[in-house]
């Protein structure tokens, strides 16, 4: 494999709050390669979106601060880059589809205006060319009657349509890396499959690298090449998609895979990892997963396990990684 287009190293992000510092992201590392898809999995609140916002330079500082690490894109560290460089990278270098499409779109402008303004400013397109391209992009993300709806406002579209408009905006400038935060959660399975196909097509055409943040394990199984799993702000496991689905090397990943509901069954009670995720202010000592882990040992309550290699391309942050990996625990 060649060098990654985007490389995040030892990234930590904190939020100052009344109750103390929320350590939302802790020493996270990621590598994004051209033409490949990295899926970022993890419980709600584990720091996936904050990691993405840090890469995009979208964190409000304060209350947020990046307390360690670097984000290298084509030789530039985006953490220390000046505003002008940063602005240039956003959109063309790294673009993002936001989890929260309604608040990411500007409610006072029509969607057509929002897409064409981007093209006019960044691509110096004429008003009419930009508008035509906006309709084309809306068609590409399968907005029915795009030419007629280009002058509608965001609130006039359904949740799923807004999400597709976000995707149109994100790919408008052919970015080198696309970070897609829950791009298909609000979409039904058929449109979801079409959108994932569209994104894969863009990947093939432009060698775009993709970070896919999603809770949908079915989508991960269909499109991801590599998977990184987060828990309580840290990376707990990494591997190729096939291997990780077959042998999880961390109890959290194993619990997640086991919680997956299936279309071919009607269980009265769904299996769930017991307990609740830790508060971001007061993370447990030792392994953050220990209060919910069914195989925890004394060591887990006192010592934080490091992220260590367990087999080629596989890492896990668990004291019992070897036992979990080969099914002995």
């Amino acid at each position, binding site marked *: 494999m060649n060098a990654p287009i985007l490389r995040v190293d030892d990234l930590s992000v904190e939020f100052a709050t009344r*109750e103390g510092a*929320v350590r939302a992201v802790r020493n996270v590392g990621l590598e994004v390669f051209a033409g490949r898809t990295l899926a970022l999995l993890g*419980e*709600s*609140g*584990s720091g996936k979106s904050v990691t993405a916002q840090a890469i995009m330079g979208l964190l409000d500082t304060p209350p947020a601060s990046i307390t360690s690490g670097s984000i290298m894109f084509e030789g530039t560290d985006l953490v220390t880059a000046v505003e002008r460089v940063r602005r240039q990278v956003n959109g063309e270098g790294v673009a993002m589809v936001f*989890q*929260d499409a*309604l*608040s990411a779109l500007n409610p006072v402008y029509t969607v057509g205006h929002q897409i064409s303004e981007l093209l006019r400013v960044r691509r110096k397109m004429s008003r009419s060319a930009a508008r035509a391209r906006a309709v084309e992009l809306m068609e590409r993300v*399968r907005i*029915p*009657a795009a030419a*007629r709806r280009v*002058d*509608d406002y965001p609130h*006039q579209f*359904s*949740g*799923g*349509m807004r*999400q*597709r408009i976000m995707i149109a905006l994100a790919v408008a400038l052919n970015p080198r890396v696309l970070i897609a935060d*829950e791009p298909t*959660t*609000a979409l*039904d*399975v*058929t*449109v*979801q*499959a079409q959108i994932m*196909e569209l994104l894969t097509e863009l990947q093939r055409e432009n060698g775009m690298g993709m970070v896919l943040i999603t*809770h*949908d*394990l*079915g989508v*991960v*199984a*269909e499109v991801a090449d590599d998977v990184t799993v987060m828990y309580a702000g840290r990376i707990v496991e990494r591997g190729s998609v*096939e291997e990780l*689905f077959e042998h999880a090397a961390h109890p959290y990943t194993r*619990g*997640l895979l086991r*919680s*997956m*509901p*299936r*279309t*071919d*069954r*009607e269980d*009265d*009670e*769904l*299996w*769930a990892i017991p307990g*609740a*995720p830790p508060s*971001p202010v007061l993370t447990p000592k030792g392994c953050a997963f220990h209060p919910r882990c069914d195989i925890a040992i004394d060591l887990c309550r006192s010592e934080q396990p490091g992220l260590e290699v367990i087999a080629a391309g596989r890492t896990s942050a668990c004291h019992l990684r070897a036992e979990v990996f080969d099914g002995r625990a």
Partner: protein
Amino acid sequence: MGEREIVLEVDSLVRHFPVGGGLLSRRRGAVQAVDGVSFTLGRGETLGVVGESGCGKSTLARTIVGLDSPTSGHVRYRGVDVHAASGRELRAMRRSVQIVLQDPYTSLNPRKTVRDLLTQPFEIHPDVLPRDRRLSRVKELLDVVGLNPDHLDRYPFQFSGGQRQRIGIARALALEPEVVVCDEPVSALDVSVQAQVVNLLRRLQRELGLSYVFIAHDLSVVRHISDRVAVMYLGKVVELGDRREVYERPQHPYTRALLEAVPVPEPRGRASRARTLLAGDPPSPVDPPSGCRFRTRCPKAQSVCAETEPVLRIGSTPAAEVACHFPEQTPLARLGGA
């Protein structure tokens, strides 16, 4: 099953939104978001609603609870027309029929603490509970949904997505409703939290006799929680039946297409796995196709499909109704994950 006690009746419900033509066009039309939907919901029952993005599910949900008004048709809660009710009846209805909104990010006011968010329903309906008993009730609610009562003075952003969604559920349950309309209540949650929320909703249903209209894109979650399932396409219900019938013997070509598109959670072998995907794009809800609205994408369409609109009626089994001139009879071979 004994006699069903009907709590909610949706009768020929229509909601159209007027839209303007382009700048140069004088033509005006209407988005036919919900176009003639009818069903009944019994006490303690769950009706799952699935369908393409933009087919009208949220509009249906909002209209059921009275956040939006129908263009025509009726919603009755225990016989009382939700949109014609006034005075005491309206207040009683507002209290008994609640909604959990699709978006956990924008549906909770970020400037209010959990305490504010959960006491607000009692301020709107002060007669439900005297002021001095409200705090203990709020703590009870937090406990019911599995949130720590010590976190009362936190703001929504200080909770994870799953916890925020539970705040939304606690709020919907505050006034002890009888019907809860859940619009995508779990889609923002990781599968483990999702399972916890689904289990919670089912437990509350058993304990309190709640009825749910449960809207979701995740077909597996819908199968687990629903008694009956309604499949919508472009503003209409195309199939409605017992969950097992709908999932194992889907009769409408759209239902089959939907189930066949469910991704298989098994990465190995994906390259050789052909997923049959629905061809074509969803038609415009402003001028939907004549006859059967699915005909532009239906592999089985005949000329009659363009001429006559199929009505929803009992097909090969009384356990399901289907709106198709040529309903399928065979069981579905492949189910996601099978």
